[in-house]
């Protein structure tokens, strides 16, 4: 692999705006950005015609399944999927087996990410031991080895006292606690959004209020403790309102939304396919519209995939027994550009530098495309129309509901630390 890359013919989109520019990368850093750069022999030339050249994408919410569920995904296959989706950095969710609640497990995940070499894999830590919601994980020890985002994702921290203590304890560690907002008592047995469709389909409902109560509780805990909270996969209109109001007050609250919550609704469960079962569930069109509006006005900071691979046989179980979750890394850009009516730069911001800030990786990722900056870059065609071919997915699993749905926007190249991890849509290793 060449140490020198020249990306020619594209439009650069970053924090500084949008401009026509070629980009030369040398020794892991952006060396030159200019309207026209003549190639030299040492250059590996990457064609960016019709494309946007942007800071690499950062996913705040990736389930890589290793250790524990390697039949669904490994850190290597998940990293490959991430690279193909334009990601240079992903935050690995802690609901592995064993849980990412100790230095040894977290270090294992980080090392596996390095070994795969396709993406900067940043392990999150769980807030509580085993994500059991009873006893705090060693937040300080984990922070000391670089863990920045803590969450019990898969579950929310139910106990308000424990969540208060976690925030107070974490307040001076420089980390962020991220919450999967779901009051479990209100979602026992729930399979899909509670509303008209679940009434007809005869499926137990997951009421919006189960999310909103915890969003509200945690916003108030931010007010009380001053420690930041990041709200994962916001899915209801009222949740968006709560976060918008909290931000207007200047509270340290950030939020993300998934590609599927801006594109799909609960009506899709009509055929009882578990591909549409996800947690939080697909909601109604007014919710989808509100989440899109929240992204457009900046209430929601980031698009995060909640990439959740599951082996086929688990998704073939009856709907109430099938695990929730869907793939996201390879389709996030295509779904976002197909469904969001926002300036392109704002979509890129929500995929790149805004999540980079929340993930605590803004020193390396989501940097402006400027000389001297680390060369973590994504080159994508924003108007390319394409469809998912399941067999060609890099992920080990196939549980995407976007098969046969036209997507817009496709990643052409991904550059990690100055080296192409994806070239012309294909992973380099």
């Amino acid at each position, binding site marked *: 692999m060449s140490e020198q890359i020249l990306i020619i013919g594209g439009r650069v989109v970053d924090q500084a705006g949008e401009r026509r520019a070629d980009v030369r990368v040398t020794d892991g850093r952006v060396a030159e950005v200019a309207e026209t750069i003549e190639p030299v022999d040492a250059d590996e030339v990457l064609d960016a015609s019709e494309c946007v050249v942007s800071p690499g994408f950062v996913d705040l919410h990736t389930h890589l399944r290793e250790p524990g569920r390697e039949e669904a995904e490994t850190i290597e296959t998940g990293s490959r999927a991430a690279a193909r989706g334009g990601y240079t950095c992903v935050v690995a969710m802690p609901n592995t087996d064993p849980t990412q609640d100790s230095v040894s497990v977290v270090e294992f995940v980080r090392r596996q990410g390095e070994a795969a070499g396709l993406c900067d894999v940043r392990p999150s830590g769980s807030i509580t031991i085993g994500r059991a919601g009873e006893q705090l994980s060693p937040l300080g020890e984990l922070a000391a080895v670089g863990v920045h985002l803590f969450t019990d994702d898969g579950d929310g921290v139910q106990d308000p006292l424990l969540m208060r203590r976690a925030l107070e304890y974490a307040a001076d560690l420089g980390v962020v606690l991220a919450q999967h907002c779901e009051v479990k008592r209100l979602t026992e047995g729930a399979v899909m959004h509670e509303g008209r469709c679940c009434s007809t*389909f*005869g*499926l137990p409902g997951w009421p919006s209020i189960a999310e909103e109560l915890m969003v509200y509780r945690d916003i108030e805990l931010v007010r009380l403790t001053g420690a930041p909270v990041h709200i994962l996969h916001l899915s209801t209109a009222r949740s968006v309102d709560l976060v918008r109001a909290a931000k207007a007050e200047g509270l340290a609250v950030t939020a993300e939304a998934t590609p599927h919550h801006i594109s799909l609704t609960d009506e899709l469960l009509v055929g009882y396919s578990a591909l549409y079962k996800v947690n939080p569930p697909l909601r109604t069109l007014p919710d989808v519209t509100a989440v899109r509006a929240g992204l457009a006005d900046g209430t929601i900071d980031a698009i995060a995939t909640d990439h959740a691979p599951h082996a086929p046989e688990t998704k073939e*179980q*009856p709907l109430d027994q099938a695990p929730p979750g869907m793939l996201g890394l390879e389709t996030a850009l295509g779904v976002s550009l197909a469904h969001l009516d926002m300036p392109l730069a704002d979509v890129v911001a929500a995929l790149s530098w805004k999540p980079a800030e929340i993930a605590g990786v803004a020193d390396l990722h989501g940097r402006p495309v400027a000389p001297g900056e680390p060369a973590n870059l994504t080159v994508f065609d924003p108007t390319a129309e394409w469809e998912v071919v399941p067999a060609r997915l890099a992920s080990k699993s196939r549980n995407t509901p976007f098969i046969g749905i036209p997507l817009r926007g496709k990643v052409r190249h991904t550059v990690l630390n100055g080296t192409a991890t994806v070239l012309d849509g294909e992973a380099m290793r």
Partner: protein
Amino acid sequence: MRHFRSIDEVGTDGVTRLLDLADHMAEVNRRPNPKVPALRGKTVCNVFFEDSTRTRLSFETAAKRLSADIMNFGVSSSSVNKGESLRDTIETIAAMGVDAFVIRHGSSGVPWQVEQWTDAAVVNAGDGWHAHPTQALLDCYTIRTALHRTGGFDGLKIAIVGDVKHSRVARSDIRAFTLLGADVTLVAPRTLLPPTVDVPVTTDLDDVIGDVDVLYLLRMQRERMTESLVPSLREYTARFGLTPARAVALPEHALIMHPGPMNRGVEMAVDPGELPGAVITQQVTNGIAVRMAVLFELLGSGTELEDDE
């Protein structure tokens, strides 16, 4: 008609056609030798992942009266207990050569999944809280014959009382009764209703009971109390049960229906044997005719319904 998994799958025309066909089947059932060769050579498999006596026996009887071969697969004695997946179970049975699966499962939607794994016809014998379309057909057929309503249910007032939320019978009945033109009212506390309903709701049974043509009581399961859905069965009976006082308030012509099994002393706080309008045993009898109609519609090849030789 490829499958029969919900009332909506066949629509008003399908329901009417099946009810008309059930008339012929009822005629067969009244013969001294109630058996016709219509489905000879066809194989029907009952696949019941949930305990059921009446529905399974009803389908079995229906299949036999049409001369189909019937196999029974019960979960308690099956490979499912050895960890076999639903898909493998279905594909294994299908490989033996099955023309129709009759499926009962505790999870809503299973008949839609099964359809993807087999070429056989799929009949829903009850899925989760979702649907029990042959029960709805037999209920429609019972009303139609008892009240001489061959032309439809326009203007008919039907009250469905009790735990609609957890009831596949209620969901299918509401659809079928409404499609045929009836005015359906649900009588239940908010805790026993789905999040949204498309028909009128009341919590005052006494307000509607004097003006109904059909009073349909749902089974009240004891575990609903521990889930805080009702304070006690005593209170449920007082507010929503058919008590002697309410039985007197019913119009003389009104039918009293129940999908079974009944909880005597709870939703049925009178002896139905003493109620002239009770058609609960007729429901069971009619179940065979409508299930014959469904199987014949799915598997028949236009053969006339002739006497067996």
